[in-house]
């Protein structure tokens, strides 16, 4: 029986599946924090599947989009479930990916030789942000319309060509039917690009294998992915399913904005235009700079900081379990991101402006100053 299974798994395509999902050697000491990668994969699959079924009933037209979403909720069999799963699934996807990213930061998973894994991961995050943003426009509620207007108008801050780029993004002179149509088209396309990028992420990871909580090379003490790590991941998936179900069945609108249940009205601007919760930290950084172009550049710098992280990391030690100084700065960064998220949904007035500015400064100090310097400080302290 065993021999039969072994010969079966030596077939061309199945051999690849076997090498990457069954026999794939993983460090023996991986903790539950390493389960968020596979959970993110599940989120992506769920989003694509629910999205395909939602697209069968959705109409990308400004006169019908809002009504078609209501039609999905009221008339389509199980439509409410599909829609709530898709809407909350986006939030769940971001929760999982943010935790996955923080784990990578804490345990130094971005350092050599896994630079490519990190860079592809940041690109996936960028694509996710883009997909989620244009997806939020599709229900054509008040927050969809005004969110799209505010965010796409940011392109107008680019000198010389800014206005042309904004008009090109809109497909006209304002956010209108052409915008909704192209956003729907792109929202359908981008998840498949994310899926492709995720495959590249996995291939890059499997070249050198997973990092581990100790941060040291674990070439000898490795165990096969199946059954050990699969079982461990399964625990995470079950906990995630319970958490996700809690939102779908008990608080489906908790993470959304009530204004999005009002049809889009270009003649009536909402009192506060707030993006979805997962954009709030970046939105707070954007608003903390009292200059449109400066804000746009700051958003760019957030992703540049993440992209260059593997190359500015100077520490000889990978895991923060053995970097007490970095651990403190890391938890401050977590607090900083939470505060930025909170500031992002507050009105632009005192004291929120000042708090947002201080939090934004710390965010960049952590990545662009602390990360390169900390390794040298650690080296100095170790030599003393």
């Amino acid at each position: 029986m065993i021999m039969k299974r072994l010969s079966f798994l030596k077939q061309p395509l199945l051999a690849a599946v076997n090498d990457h999902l069954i026999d794939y050697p993983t460090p023996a000491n991986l903790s539950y924090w390493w389960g968020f990668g596979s959970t993110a994969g599940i989120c992506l699959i769920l989003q694509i599947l629910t999205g395909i079924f939602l697209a069968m009933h959705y109409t990308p037209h400004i006169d019908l989009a809002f009504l078609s979403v209501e039609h999905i909720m009221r008339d389509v069999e199980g439509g409410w479930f599909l829609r709530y799963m898709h809407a909350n699934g986006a939030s769940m996807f971001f929760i999982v990916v943010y935790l996955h990213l923080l784990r990578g930061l804490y345990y130094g998973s971005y350092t050599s030789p896994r630079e490519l894994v990190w860079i592809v991961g940041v690109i996936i995050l960028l694509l996710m942000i883009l997909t989620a943003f244009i997806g939020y426009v599709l229900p054509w509620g008040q927050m969809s319309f005004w969110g799209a207007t505010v965010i796409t108008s940011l392109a107008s801050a680019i000198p010389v060509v800014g206005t042309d780029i904004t008009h090109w993004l809109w497909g006209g002179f304002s956010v209108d039917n052409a915008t909704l149509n192209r956003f729907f088209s792109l929202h359908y396309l981008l998840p498949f690009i994310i899926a492709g990028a995720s495959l590249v992420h996995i291939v890059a990871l499997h070249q050198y294998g997973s990092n581990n909580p100790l941060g040291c090379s674990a070439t000898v003490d490795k165990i096969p992915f199946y059954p050990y790590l699969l079982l461990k991941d399964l625990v995470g998936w079950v906990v995630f399913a319970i958490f996700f179900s809690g939102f779908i069945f008990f608080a489906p609108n908790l993470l959304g904005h009530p204004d999005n249940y009002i049809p889009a009205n270009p003649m009536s601007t909402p009192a506060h235009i707030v993006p979805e919760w997962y954009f709030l930290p970046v939105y707070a950084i954007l608003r903390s700079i009292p200059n449109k172009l400066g804000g746009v550049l700051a958003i760019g710098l957030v992703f540049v900081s993440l992209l260059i992280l593997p190359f500015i990391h100077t520490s000889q030690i990978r895991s923060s379990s053995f970097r007490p100084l970095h651990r403190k700065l890391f938890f401050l960064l977590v607090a900083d991101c939470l505060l930025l998220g909170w500031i992002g949904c507050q009105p632009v007035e005192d004291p929120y402006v000042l708090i947002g500015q201080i939090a934004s400064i710390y965010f960049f100090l952590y990545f662009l100053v602390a990360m390169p310097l900390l390794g040298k400080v650690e080296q100095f302290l170790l030599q003393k």
Partner: protein
Amino acid sequence: MAKIPARLRSVTYTLSPMRTGVMHGLFKDWASGMAKRVTENAVDVGLFCALPTIATVMYASNYKEQEKLHHRY
């Protein structure tokens, strides 16, 4: 005597968590294991994550309250 690493492919299907007995130790010393995990980063999380977050939110709410009172009287 040095340990000879086993070939993964040859052992994958003959190993089972039950057969190798790895599950026996799962709940061994459970309480101290959990205590260690919880307290490992407790001081850093408390001082550098929870404290600044709570302190900032309290400062802001106090500021708004004072501002309200200032306008009232």
